[in-house]
């Protein structure tokens, strides 16, 4: 199996607690270092330079049952990040990665300290298909638009 940073493994195992197999991994090596040699460099694969803004990783994992799932990841490092900033970075990467014939199933934000009220009334949920779980449990938000679905774990 391809080696990826522990924080990314945490996300994958949270989505598939019964286990998974990493089929493909592209990591922003400028941020996460070169030690993950099995993984490809996300910037190189997307033909981006150091000037461009990109999310942390693209991984394709296969759960024990069911089809493989492609995920874009944005993870907080040592410093706190604003959730809107993380969302924007995911969107930027998403726009580029779909031109490389990659189909993204989910985008995941990990470790964001959510300051915004993630409230959605029932009508909001029906119209805009935003699903929100508040409380101590992991906050889960998924947008029903065709292009991007975001989970906050």
């Amino acid at each position, binding site marked *: 199996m391809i080696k990826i940073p522990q924080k990314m493994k945490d996300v994958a195992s949270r989505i598939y607690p019964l286990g998974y197999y990493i089929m493909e991994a592209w990591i922003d090596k400028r941020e996460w270092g070169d030690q993950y040699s099995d993984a490809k460099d996300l910037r190189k694969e997307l033909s981006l330079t*150091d*000037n*461009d803004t*990109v999310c942390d990783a693209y991984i394709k994992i296969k759960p024990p049952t069911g089809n493989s799932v492609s995920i874009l990841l944005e993870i907080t*490092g040592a*410093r706190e990040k604003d959730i809107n900033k993380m969302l924007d970075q995911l969107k930027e990467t998403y726009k580029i990665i779909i031109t490389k014939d990659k189909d993204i199933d989910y985008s995941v934000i990990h470790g964001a*300290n959510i*300051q915004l009220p993630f409230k959605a009334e029932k009508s909001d949920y029906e119209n805009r298909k935003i699903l929100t779980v508040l409380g101590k449990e992991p906050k889960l938000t998924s947008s029903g638009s065709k292009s991007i679905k975001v989970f906050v774990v």
Partner: protein
Amino acid sequence: MAIYISLKKNEKTSLADRITSTIQFSKRLLSQYNFMESSAKIYELVRIEQDSETFDVEDLNVGQKIANRIASLKRSSYGVVINGKIYIDSKIFHPFIDILPPNRSQYYDFIIDVYENAYASTLEDLNKYTNLYERIEKIILSYNKEYKSNKNLLEIKTAIVSDYFKQYHDIKDWTYFFSKNVEELILLVFFNDKDLKNRLYYAPSFNRTKTLFNFDGYRLAIAKAAQTHKVAIKTGSISLSPQKEDAMKGFVNEITQITKKLIKTTNVTKEEQIEKYEKALKEINY
């Protein structure tokens, strides 16, 4: 790490003025670095939606146009985000200006930060390539002078540089602080210390800070503390920029100690006050 700025508002302040002021200030701050390809978008709570209308930031009436559009949406929880590119040392950075929705703007009106790339992950990292804090200060002062001649601009009241989620808390955690009211520094010191807060329980704190600040000895003591902790103070309005890490902490701790010493001579805590009352009653045999 981002810049948080609050504007001077009153009941008559319109959303258009808030947006225009933010755009004018941000453009001035970033103009030296060729602020390019900028555009504004409206968002609601979180920026998930993909296809919202974009507005040209160079347009002089953009503030009014965005405000009209928000008014037509008939909900108050809309914010505006402005994206663009800047060039520093032949590197490209992607700053964004987030004009907070009215229901989130009671403390700060807008935030300036950069998206991560290989050179910078937060705004603070730009300091490696350019002297950003000095520029912020220069632009705030020149903007505040100019706002008087333009009816659509609002004055900048407070500006701080802080980590995310620390902007509401302790002044010690901030790496830059500017305020139009010099007394605000002392107010922040009061509010961040339990004992001082207790002692001001009965006193109108703003008046107290004014008296304290007008006392020459106190001002000199603050200047001395700033010198020892390498915090640059510029007065008129007040602007603090620590020259090294943890300088702000040391500086704030020291002025808290000085203020405590002075306030103890004039103000009492609730318990001390009750003790005094009891003593006075005993003296007249009741």
